[in-house]
Each structure stands twice: as C-alpha cells, then as structure tokens.
C-alpha cells in the first residue's frame, strides 16, 4: 500500500512547492529583465532624435562619460525636473559629460517630444525610443530614471536625480554627487536611489 501512495504524495508535494513558489514570487507589470549591474559595459546603441537623425550612444557621450535620462513630455515628475536636467547638462558639458534624454513612451510621438523640448528649453539631445527597445535593454521602468556611464560606457550609476521633486526639498543630490565622484576618479558612494515616477508607457 505504501508503494501505491508514494508517487501521488511525491507529485502532490512537488505541486505544493511549485504553487508556493509562484504565489510568493513578485510580478513586474512588464516582466522586464533586471537592469544591468553596476560595472557592466553597455553595448552601444543607435536611436533617432525627434527629427529622425540617428545617433549612437558612443558618439553622443562626452569624453568623460554620459548621463542617460529617461524622460517624458506628460509626466509631471519628469517635468518637475526639466530645469534641473537642463542645468545639469549645461554644468557638466564643460566637464566632458553629456546628458542624453530618451523618450520611450509609446504615447508620446517624436513631434510631441520635439515641441516639448522647445517649450521647456531643453537643449540636450533627446532620442526617441520607438518600441521601448532601449528601455527594455536597460530595465528602465519610470521617468525620470538615470543611468551614468564613464567614457568607456561602463555603467557607474543607476537611480534618481535627487531626493525631492521640489527644489526646496532637496537634501541629497545623488546624481551630481555621483558625477563629481566619477570626475574625481573616486568610486561612486551611492547608487540605486529610489524615487517615485511615472511608469514608462510601453508598447503592449
């Protein structure tokens, strides 16, 4: 009799364990791959800007690195950072670090990206990521979300711009501190900072 019960019991236990694993596991709305780990060298990619001209990450990056920011036209959080992003681009261009915006929202077409940049006086290059391929590759989920590479496209920082949507509330200037540390040849002391943001609207 024992032999008769052994197989069903074994199968049942496997089912229970599998069920518990599935029930306890997290779900991501888009089942995205994890972002590349800090220290990973990013593969170069090409994307068009709002006028359709193609750019590669390698050529857009400055001699000391690049700041990639996933941005949006309609997201109030991303828009709250427009002035700060532009100031950052101006401040660090002279230091050999270029800011590159990427718009991956499928709800915001290239003409809208162009007119938004004009209205908000954003002078740094903003690429249009149709099909959110680069957002998927980098595991970007929200706007604004920042990735920093050094001159060799090695990822050194991934996270937020700072701790507060309101300028008067800033107490931790995470991105600027990371850039200054990179320029000084120091290890980045803080990466992975979290902040609320708008979900990137991906193609379904």
């Amino acid at each position, binding site marked *: 009799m024992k032999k008769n019960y052994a197989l069903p019991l074994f199968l049942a236990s496997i089912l229970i364990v599998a069920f518990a694993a599935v*029930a*306890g596991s997290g779900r991501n709305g*888009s089942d995205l791959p994890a972002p590349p780990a800090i220290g990973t060298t990013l593969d170069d990619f090409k994307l068009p800007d709002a006028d359709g001209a193609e750019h590669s990450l390698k050529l857009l990056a400055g001699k000391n690195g690049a700041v990639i920011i996933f941005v949006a036209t309609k997201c109030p959080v991303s828009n709250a950072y427009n002035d700060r992003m532009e100031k950052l681009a101006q401040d660090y261009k002279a230091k050999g670090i270029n800011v590159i915006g990427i718009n991956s929202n499928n709800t915001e077409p290239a003409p809208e990206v162009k007119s938004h940049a004009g209205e908000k006086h954003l002078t740094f290059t903003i690429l249009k990521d149709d099909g959110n391929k680069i957002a998927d590759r980098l595991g970007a989920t929200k706007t604004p979300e920042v990735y920093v590479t050094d001159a060799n496209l090695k990822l050194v920082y991934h996270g*937020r711009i700072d701790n507060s949507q309101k300028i008067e509330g800033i107490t931790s200037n995470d991105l600027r501190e990371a850039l200054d540390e990179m320029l000084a040849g120091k290890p980045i002391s803080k990466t992975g900072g*979290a902040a*609320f*943001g*708008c979900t990137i*609207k991906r193609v379904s």
Partner: protein
Amino acid sequence: MKSIPGQVAISAVGLMIVLGASLAAFAQTPSASPAKTVNQILSVRGKYFDDLVPLPKKHYIPECCFCHKPPFSFNDWRLKPVRPPGEVREIDFEGLKKILQRDPKDTRPLLVNFWATWCDPCREEFPDLVKLDAEYTAKRLNFVAVSLDDISDIKTAVPRFLKEMKATMPVVLLNVNDPEPAIHAVDEKWDGQLPATFLYDKDGRVVFKYFGRIKPEELRSAIDKQVGSKQ
C-alpha cells in the same frame, strides 16, 4: 378536504425542521453577538485609521451576507464604513509603517495600492480598484489606497478624483520629503514606479505584488486565496 389536516401537519413539521436548523446554526456560531464583531472590527480598524473610530454610528451600516449563502452565520455580519468619497488623510513615513505593520488580531488580508492623480495608469486602473473594494468589503479585505500626490493637492485634485471615482476605501496621502525610505520599507525590489499594488496575508507577508496597471482577475484571484483561506 380530507387531506387538509395532513398538509397542515406536514407544513408544521417542515417549519419545525427549518426553525431547528436555524437555531442550531445560531448556537454553533462561536461569536454570536453582532455587536461584539462590530466592536472588534472598529478596534482593529482604529489601529490603522484614526479617522475611522470617531465617525458617528450613522456613518456605518450593517452589511450581511446570509441572504446570499444560507445557512447564515453571524460571522458574516460586519460593518461597512460609508464615508463620503473624497476623504483623504495625510500620513508621514511613520504612518505608512503603521499601515504596513499587521496587528496579530487582524486576520484580514491587507491590500495597498500606491497611486497618484498625475499617474495615467493609476487613474486608468482606479475604477477596477473601486469595484474590488465594493466586492470584497463583505469578505473583510483591508484596502488602503496611498496617494503620492503633492500635499498641496490633498484638498483639491485628490478628493476631486476620488469623488469622480466614487471611491470609499480609506485613502491616505503620503507626505515625505525623501521617498526612498518609504519605497524601501514597502518592498526592496520596488523602485518607485507607479502604480504599485501589494497584497499582504494576515501575517504581513507579501503574497502578491504588481508594478504597473493591475490585471483585475489576477488580483481578484490572489485576494480570493487569502479570503478563502481564513473561512
């Protein structure tokens, strides 16, 4: 004419059986006092929502499920808070931690949805959440919607949206200068994207989480597992 006394006798016997069964069901109910259950619910909810306890009794109506699934039990009686749509309470990080810390006496699953009026997918999924709230109040789901709107919106955009949605679940607005501790307190894997939805079991374990617009059937299935497990 001859069969009338027989019909009366059969009807009387039938009535006695029905009455007997009802009394037996009543006697077997462990907590047979609806008032006690009411007080228990109030005390449990009061630990999380200070605004619930002082509400006058007229704001609560008894809700009963026995009409749908006889034989009934008084455990099915509960209170449903009937709050005017649009009520929002400000909380800080400590307030959020209080919501997430489960009282051992509270056996209800806890559903927490993080949202904001400026977040399109949050707005899109909200009608589904309102439906779920209406559907599960009878099953004792503790549902809290946490708004990440700016504090300046607590009397304007947030209540306006809630009224539009006819939302009556408890809604709090998290007012923190640095969101990172709050985000990490909720879930280490969460990076702050909205909306985000978490379901905790009675022991405070996350049994379901979803980043982005929920799929109502998936969430309903997860809730059913928790609600069903305690019945």
